């Protein structure tokens, strides 16, 4: 078990910079997710930690020791690849035992440890089969068993669930988290799926175009996005231009042309000191659509009319027009959804808002 530290890490491929000046501290035993759209440099980061790529600049430390010059086979890491990378010519047991052969584990002990790993991933009876004879989800578990049987210092997972179908993915998500907690290994998980990241991580590192946008707990990145990118990448957000009319100890007073005065909690409006303009961020789930004329206690409301109704069973997604701006709302359905063209009110509680600097 070890911490992982990236200091000013840069990776260039010829003249293209895939990773810019990344600084990151992953504490011992943490489950940290690198989240971002495809091509933002997540895999590149992971491969540098793994030792499959050399950083162009910067230092990588594992357990406090610089590993830039340590070859991959000496780093003692468990890696689960996106396509599993199981050895097709070896049985499941041989696959899982592979890493033990290079670790001076007595022969007599190998079978027992392989079996323990297979038990842990809940596939105790497949040792003699070949990987091709297993389903995708089972191959996934074997890849995990192979990575953890060596008791790695760090577990690296590159989009391990993306090849599974939706149901299985959710099961594996829970399963993976259970196993990680059980063995307590420091884990770096790469995904482009925000719900995976939110569900599994102790901390989320949101990346965009080779840079870190924000590091925080799932609640932090979700509720207090540090940038417009984070706000729109994690779920749907409404982002409105606003004027700053005043700031005091616990509130930032914003003035928005559609809704008027909005007092945003200062905790959710960092980095606004001295500015005169800001962006008001409101999650689609926090924008309530209520009937025209209905009371909206404690809320700020504006008249709106429904443009599009995207019915999803338990919830419904509305696109409503407020003034000349289209806003998105995701609401639980009470009785029946509002109809297209219906005049309604769009309302929200000011404490659900966050604010970002203008630029």
């Amino acid at each position: 078990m070890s911490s992982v530290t990236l200091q000013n890490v840069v990776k260039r491929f010829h003249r293209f910079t895939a990773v810019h000046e990344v600084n990151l501290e992953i504490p011992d035993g943490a489950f940290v997710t690198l989240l971002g759209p495809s091509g933002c440099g997540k895999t590149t980061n992971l491969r540098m930690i793994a030792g499959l790529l050399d950083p162009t600049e910067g230092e990588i430390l594992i357990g406090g020791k610089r590993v830039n010059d340590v070859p991959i086979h000496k780093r003692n890491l468990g890696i689960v690849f996106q396509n599993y990378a199981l050895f097709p010519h070896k049985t499941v047991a041989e696959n899982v035992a592979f890493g033990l052969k290079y670790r001076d584990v007595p022969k007599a002990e190998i079978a027992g440890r392989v079996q323990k790993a297979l038990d842990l991933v809940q596939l105790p009876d497949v040792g003699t089969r070949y990987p091709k004879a297993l389903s995708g989800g089972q191959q996934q578990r074997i890849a995990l068993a192979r990575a953890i049987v060596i008791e790695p210092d760090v577990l690296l997972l590159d989009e391990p669930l993306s090849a599974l179908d939706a149901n299985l993915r959710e099961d594996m998500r829970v399963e993976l988290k259970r196993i990680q907690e059980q063995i307590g290994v420091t884990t770096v998980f790469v995904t482009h799926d925000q719900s995976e990241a939110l569900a599994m991580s102790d901390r989320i590192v949101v990346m965009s175009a080779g840079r870190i946008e924000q590091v925080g707990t799932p609640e932090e990145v979700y509720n207090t996005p540090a940038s417009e990118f984070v706000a729109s990448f994690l779920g749907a957000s409404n982002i409105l231009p606003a004027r700053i009319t005043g700031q005091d100890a616990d509130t930032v007073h914003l003035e928005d042309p559609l809704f008027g005065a909005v007092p945003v909690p200062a905790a959710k409006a960092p980095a606004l000191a001295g500015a005169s303009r800001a962006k008001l961020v409101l999650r689609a789930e926090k924008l309530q659509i209520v009937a025209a004329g209905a009371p909206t206690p404690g809320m700020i409301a504006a008249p709106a009319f429904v443009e599009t109704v995207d019915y999803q069973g338990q919830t419904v997604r509305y696109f409503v027009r407020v003034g000349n701006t289209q806003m998105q709302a995701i609401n639980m359905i009470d009785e029946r959804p509002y109809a297209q063209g219906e005049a309604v009110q769009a309302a929200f509680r000011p404490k659900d808002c966050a604010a970002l600097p203008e630029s």
Partner: protein
Amino acid sequence: MSIEARERRQPWILLSPALTTIGLLLFVPLLFIVVYSFWLRTATGADQAGFYLDNWREALSDPFYRDILLFTLKIAAITTLVCAVMGYPAAYFIARSRGNKAILLLLLMLPFWISYIIRTMSWINILGVSGALNSLLIWLGIISEPMQMLYNQTTVILGLVHFLLPFMILNVFVSLEGIDVTLEDAANSLGATKWEAFLQVTLPLSLPGLAAGGLLCFVLGAGTYITPLVLGGPTDAMFANLVYEAIITQLNWPLGSALSLMLLVVLGVLVMIYNRYLGMAQLMKGLG
């Protein structure tokens, strides 16, 4: 016609041009050769139709033919081994190279644009008494008289390797291309060095290609007559040279037919043994 019946017929319709061509150009002539091998060449030089076993008796009982057959198999085996040892690293290099793979493959194909006979003859200009190598050595003062480097077993193998190496490289290349490179990464991450990862993962997975390349080199090498004719000495005749001799020089078609069928059967049996013990099916099993 039902859809299923049509679907069942479709493969045959699509195969028919190829099957017709192969049938007409391969099996019909082969049938002629089988028939010919039972005819008899009379003292006057005419062929006598009938069912005579004389040619077969001569081909199977004369130790001369047996020795040359064994020599042929030996040369083919050495050639295959040399091709494997030289070809595998080259194929690995091409398969793992980025960007310029297409150019490397084109270079590999380039020799096929020049006639095999001309490529074989080119060694005379290189190794011959007044060839490039002798001239260079004399010019350097290392030797004073030109050396006879041509017309021996080594030059025959050299010519065959020159001819067959691209086949080996292509076959190994194709199988290496089919191997996921992250398998080696996975092996490395589990503690294997690059070399151990190669031995444990890449090499076993590429064996089908190596075996296919080996079979091709062996069969083509064992059936050749041009290379020993051009680059071999009087004692380096291979089995196909005997067939050539019988048919072209002596105009003895019946004996030539029997000899060529004999080589065909021997190679056919070897292919079958190979398929049985080393065959694709066996090797592919693990790959699903």
